[in-house]
């Protein structure tokens, strides 16, 4: 098992290098310079000053030299300094925003598992029942709904019409004056819509996949054996079938992580949540190369870690994987 893990982790290194190369070159080959933002608006900016800015940011050097110096800094755990007016280290800017994004994504993963797996299992066990058909329609629409539109509708309905839930930010204005319990309730209320929206995209896919898996497993010989030796239907379904049908879903959950993280740009922008997605949106708009690079890298690392955890738990659950 340990050997398997080490092999997987070593395999991640060239992948990560490839990722950074693609990001770096795509970004720097694009026309326009980050210094334009600071100089175009400023009539006093002379050509000389522009050059000074360019050399300050090392943008005047050839691109492979820039990449090498970025990589060397990365080796020391330094993601560089933001181009934006606060000139803070990129790592600090990301780290202060990462937890909220991870918490929301983690909560939505839990919701996806808690809701999609039972839906899939029940649909498969009661194939062609009314429940199965209703869920099929739900899943089909779930695939097609633009999540940002659903977010808007829920904001209008729960936030504005009913006034039940806040529609932006993480805290109310009177947060400071609330009791600890009140602060917790306030936070939960602010998180309900974003977490729901973030989970929604994954629900349809996972429940459908779960149903397909379950249907396939139920037809296997060992399920027939389990029935033949007189086990109760409950035991057959939940002990024998479910365990085997769950395995591939673990991998799919790992694969759905990039989608979840990518989606955080949308819901964090809509709900004005100060997370990594919002930072990414702002940095992209401001052409803040180091921050954009940093976030792309963190996003890729999170994806790889997610895949690794998925594969590792798969290997724990299914001995056949470990041998090959």
């Amino acid at each position, binding site marked *: 098992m340990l050997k398997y893990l080490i092999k997987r982790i070593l395999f991640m290194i060239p992948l990560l290098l*490839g990722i950074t190369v693609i990001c770096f070159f795509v970004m720097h080959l694009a026309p326009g310079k980050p210094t334009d933002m600071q100089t175009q608006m400023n009539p006093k900016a002379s050509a000389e000053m522009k050059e000074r800015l360019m050399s300050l940011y090392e943008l005047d050097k050839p691109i492979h030299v820039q990449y090498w110096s970025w990589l060397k800094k990365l080796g020391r755990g330094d993601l560089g300094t933001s181009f934006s007016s606060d000139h803070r280290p990129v790592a600090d800017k990301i780290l202060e925003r990462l937890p909220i994004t991870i918490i929301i994504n983690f909560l939505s993963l839990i919701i996806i598992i808690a809701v999609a797996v039972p839906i899939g299992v029940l649909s498969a066990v009661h194939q062609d029942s009314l429940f199965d058909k209703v869920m099929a329609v739900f899943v089909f629409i779930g695939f097609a709904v633009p999540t940002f539109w659903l977010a808007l509708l829920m904001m209008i309905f729960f936030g504005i019409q009913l006034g039940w839930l806040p529609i932006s930010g993480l805290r109310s204005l009177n947060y400071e004056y609330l009791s600890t319990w009140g602060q917790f309730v306030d936070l939960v209320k602010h998180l309900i819509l974003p977490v729901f929206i973030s989970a929604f995209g994954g629900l349809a896919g996972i429940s459908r996949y779960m149903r397909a898996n379950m249907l396939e497993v139920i037809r296997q010989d060992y399920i027939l054996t389990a029935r033949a030796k007189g086990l109760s239907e409950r035991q057959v379904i939940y002990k024998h079938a479910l365990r085997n049908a769950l395995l591939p879903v673990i991998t799919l959950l790992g694969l759905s992580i*990039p989608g979840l993280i990518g989606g955080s740009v949308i819901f964090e922008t809509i709900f004005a949540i100060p997370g990594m997605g919002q930072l990414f*949106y702002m940095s*992209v708009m401001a052409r803040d190369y180091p921050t954009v690079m940093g976030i792309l890298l963190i996003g890729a690392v999170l994806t790889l870690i997610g895949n690794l955890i998925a594969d590792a738990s798969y290997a724990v659950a299914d001995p056949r994987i470990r041998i090959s």
Partner: protein
Amino acid sequence: MGFWEMFYKNKLALTGCAIILFLIAVSLLAPLIVPYDPGAIDLKNVLAPPSGDHWFGTDQLGRDVFSRMIWGARISLLVGFVATGLAIFIGTVLGAVSGYYGGWIDSLIMRFVDIMLCFPTFFLILAVIAFLGPSIWNIMIVIGLTSWMGVTRLVRADFISLRERDFVRAARAIGASDARIIFIHILPNALASILVTATLGIAGAILIESALSFLGIGVQPPTPSWGNILTAGKDNIDIAWWLSLYPGLAILITVVGYNLLGEGIRDASDPRLKR
């Protein structure tokens, strides 16, 4: 049962087909059927709720939302077709080469696919569009360039399973060139699954375009798109619900249409896959 017979019997697939044909007709005839000029500003009639004059109301500049949505249908279809066409082209070529030749070329292409799949795609699209500058052509190209990986894997798998079949060996034996074997002999057999992916891909591209336009880095105003009407919906969320409701419904129906059609083609071309 043949493909068309299966397809005709599938009411859902026909519904999807009808939705898409309807949308294509609307886009082609847009200049003839819009009740108002989609760009005509009417400051006396700003944010008017839906009425007999303006079926879907007006936006913050008094423009007719119904007319803008009809115009937006053009954008959605254009982006969907071009972006998916590009993705299918790249994916098919790489997948065919990878699956047919195998060896180091295959490993190289597959590692590249792995790398591309590690990105939170939406991050990458956002970054590239923001740096290239938002325009409808850039969106189509970038969506295409970031959504070919699934096609590559699919075509590769088809090619691997087909390349040692007897009809391919026969073609090789009579001296057919690699290009001829790939395009004339193997590719047609993979066409059904490519078509299914393409149809579902168009739906995905339309969703991404609308999200980008919604965030303000897709189709730029004053050109109307379903996504950027929704941006106006968000800005006026507490007073003008109609700006948020209708464009989203249009996206939903369009995407449902493509998904129904795609699944219909899949079920008809390979009944074993039917769920």
